[in-house]
């Protein structure tokens, strides 16, 4: 269809420690590699969407000043951990709106050594005089007194809530999910960590927030990713090689969390993910059983389990038996996170929502080398940012 938008070029840097590169360097490397991959130049790009969460803003213009100032509209995007997917969707929307026919989305983050996210970054500082302030009329800090602000603790509760509702989700089960992703990472040269870990070593590692031990948490690291997108109309006039490698964006969906009972007590990351998945499957005309691979937002092992259910990879309530069937290992029915996932590939926040699309495209193009899922024709990439925002993209190989 001529109104489809396609990935023309896509790239990610190695995720990990890049002490000599700043955010703009990471974005520039990813962007220039994506342009090379696409076979176009900065003067072909009609819109730039740039995602960065922790770096203070204006990445887009700073990037232009290093790789090409052409005067095009720039959108600086933040949307929690869905920042990268939101940047991509911004570029897709500009093309669908007819404003241009080629656009670029970039996401980059410096997170090495960032430590625990969600607690404001510093030490708790108690009030010296108890005066009610804020929306809860709190007289002093609440983190640690009324629940936890930390991401590992929030997502641990989300997994435990699933365990309460459906049963059978044990500490060991969650650790087995992490064991899978660490095993997958050994085939991904761009992952931050590529070490296979035994179930025992995962369970005996440092406990962060039960049931998530350290290797069951996403790895803070540095990284960049970028995608060049093109209208179907323009793609038709391009070279056969560009057309052959182009990947169709069959669905590009973004949702926020609708009101559900209790959602302001513990974030409900389920409903908006299910909504996004339903919309994406409908838009793409694809069923979950059609998916050859899925990259989903395993920011913690506890999160991966609930998203099997939310993305409808299994019947409602059956995520545990689905995982135990072996379905989500790379040789299973629905391989999930063959990149190693956020737990081993790493999670440089704004890059994540483009890097997962890079992974899927890599397989759809048949270029994933040792970790290639043979014959892959359709894949799904999912991210969620707490607060919440959910991005789901369904991608298909050129016919």
């Amino acid at each position, binding site marked *: 269809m001529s109104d489809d938008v396609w990935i023309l070029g896509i790239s990610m840097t190695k995720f990990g420690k890049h002490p000599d590169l700043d955010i703009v360097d990471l974005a520039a490397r990813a962007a220039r590699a994506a342009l090379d991959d696409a076979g176009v130049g900065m003067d072909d790009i009609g819109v730039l969407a740039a995602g960065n969460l922790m770096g203070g803003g204006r990445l887009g213009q700073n990037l232009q000043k290093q790789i090409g100032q052409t005067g095009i509209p720039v959108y600086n995007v933040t949307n929690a951990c869905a920042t990268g997917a939101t940047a991509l969707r911004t570029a897709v929307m500009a093309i669908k709106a007819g404003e241009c026919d080629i656009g670029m989305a970039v996401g980059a983050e410096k997170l090495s050594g960032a430590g*625990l996210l969600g*607690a*404001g970054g*510093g*030490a*708790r*500082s*108690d*009030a*010296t*005089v*108890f005066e*009610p302030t804020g*929306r*809860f*009329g*709190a*007289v*002093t800090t*609440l*983190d*640690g*007194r*009324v*629940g*936890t*602000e*930390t991401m*590992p*603790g929030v997502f*641990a*509760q*989300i997994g*435990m*809530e699933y*365990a*309460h509702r459906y049963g059978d989700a044990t*500490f060991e089960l969650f650790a087995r999910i992490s064991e899978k992703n660490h095993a997958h990472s050994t085939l991904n040269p761009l992952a931050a960590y590529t070490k296979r870990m035994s179930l025992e070593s995962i369970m005996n590692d*440092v*406990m*962060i*927030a*039960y*049931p*998530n031990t350290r290797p069951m948490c996403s790895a803070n690291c540095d990284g960049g990713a970028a995608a060049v997108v093109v209208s179907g109309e323009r793609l038709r006039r391009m070279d056969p090689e560009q057309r052959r490698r182009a990947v169709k964006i069959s669905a590009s969906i973004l949702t926020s969390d609708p*009101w559900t*009972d*209790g959602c*302001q*007590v*513990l974030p409900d990351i389920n409903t908006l993910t299910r909504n996004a998945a339903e919309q994406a499957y409908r838009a793409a005309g694809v069923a979950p059983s059609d998916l050859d691979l899925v990259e989903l937002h395993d920011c913690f092992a506890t999160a991966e389990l609930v998203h099997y259910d939310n993305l409808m990879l299994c019947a409602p309530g059956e995520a545990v038996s689905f995982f135990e069937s072996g379905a989500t290992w790379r040789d299973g029915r629905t391989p999930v996170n063959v990149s190693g996932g956020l737990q081993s590939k790493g999670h440089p926040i704004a890059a994540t929502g483009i890097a997962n699309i890079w992974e899927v495209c890599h397989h759809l193009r048949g270029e994933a080398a040792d970790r290639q899922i043979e014959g892959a024709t359709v894949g799904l990439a999912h991210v969620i940012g707490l607060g919440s925002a959910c991005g789901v993209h369904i991608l298909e190989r050129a016919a």
Partner: protein
Amino acid sequence: MTQQVPLVDYLVLGDRPHLVAHECVQCGARYFDRRNACARCFAADFRNVEVPGQGEVTAFTIVAFAAPGVPVPFVPAVVDCKGTAVRANLINVPADPEHVRLGMPVRLATYMVGTDDTGTEAIGFGFEPVGV
């Protein structure tokens, strides 16, 4: 007598400490924060309602690694208080998975958080296992 203040404004102290929710008059959705309007039905009228002090643990974690200055371990949880979800720590229970269980019946309890420079005490709340 030492002056006492609640840790949060939705905790009511006194002989029978309890939590108070802001309930949307139109749809019944309950909130604990200061409201501009209802996130579910968009109405702007609320009434204060007492939340039952008994409930069941529907989710928990045991935080072993927290921001500097936050004592660990502690047990954040979601407690279903007969239909109202409440965020709180579980207290008066060892912070390990042998003693904290999903579905565990619990009840509201208060404790002293600390004393400020003027000598005022802050009283916090948590939920403890029934039968402690």
